[in-house]
């Protein structure tokens, strides 16, 4: 459900960018979706397809999604590991327990190809 409203926000952005760059056609839209952003990728893509059809500007636009995984980083030695299902208690490289988790909880419009 909220994938649809987030996709609407994306199109508002796209219209603004197209106007600013005097583009007539948007070709590729690249976004990053964090694994913990709470966004269902299939629903988001589906909403994108529906909304893209509504305007000539975006009718042929292709959505490219990169899924971002959270990373667990060591504050002492900088070693990072993917943290998909669990966070390790100590760093595998130096044994430190001072670890931080990058959230991977955002939805980011990274790049737009237009002409």
């Amino acid at each position, binding site marked *: 459900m909220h994938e649809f409203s987030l996709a609407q926000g994306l199109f508002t*952005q796209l219209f603004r*960018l197209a106007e600013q760059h005097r*583009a007539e056609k948007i070709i590729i839209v690249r976004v990053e979706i964090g694994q913990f952003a709470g966004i269902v990728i299939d629903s988001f893509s589906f909403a994108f397809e529906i909304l893209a059809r509504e305007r000539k500007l975006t009718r042929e636009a292709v959505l490219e999604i990169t899924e971002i995984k959270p990373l667990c980083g060591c504050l002492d030695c900088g070693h990072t590991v993917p943290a998909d299902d669990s966070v390790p208690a100590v760093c595998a490289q130096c044994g430190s327990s001072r670890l931080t988790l990058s959230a991977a909880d955002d939805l980011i419009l*990274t790049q737009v190809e237009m*002409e």
Partner: protein
Amino acid sequence: MCESCGCGIDHERQTTRTIDVYESLLAANTKQAGENRRSFETLGAVAVNMISGPGAGKTTLLEHTIEHLGNELRLGVIEGDIETERDAARIRKKGAPVVQITTGGACHLDARLVHKGLHRLRHESGMDRFDLIFIENVGNLVCPATFDLGEHQRVVLVSVPEGSDKPAKYPKAFLSSQRFLITKTDLLPHFDFSIDEARREALKLNPAIRITELSATAGGQGFEDWLLYLRQLLRTAAAA
């Protein structure tokens, strides 16, 4: 018009350009959430966002909380639901100022809806000071976790009948909350809920999360711990 080939396309304008953007699409909500946080603070309030699947006992817990703290603290409630005013009516009966926000189909509250709700809460109650404002989110363990409402504390509830696998299955809610309430513990004898599994999985995701087991209807130590936690929130906020 293209002069060299006569194709009718203005090649000058039609060249493909790649624009680097790197802007968060959740940023509009995050910005509004920041403004909400300041509004809550201007009112003197600590805001608590309550998240759970449908029926985990959010409204019941708020009803009992109002019974116990209503005389001592200035409470307010913002109720989020897809439809109906039922939960707000239940809270109103307990004597606390409450507004109902209906999302009209959306599965979560967002910061803009809460901003409007807060305006209404102030107008309708005529109060300009609050100690604690509860936001009861739409019953849904998935979507509400994505939207910062400007709360100071996020509390996630799982009730005993729902099962102890919920933290593992809905990680975002547990990653983003400060408090995890295992509710309806009076029903433990009738379900195969494993307190140990629920605690273990939640702590694996979020080592800093604090966990309380309670029954809103039966009362007891867990419920007292919840009240203590709320009082401590106010003390921490007052000291800050």
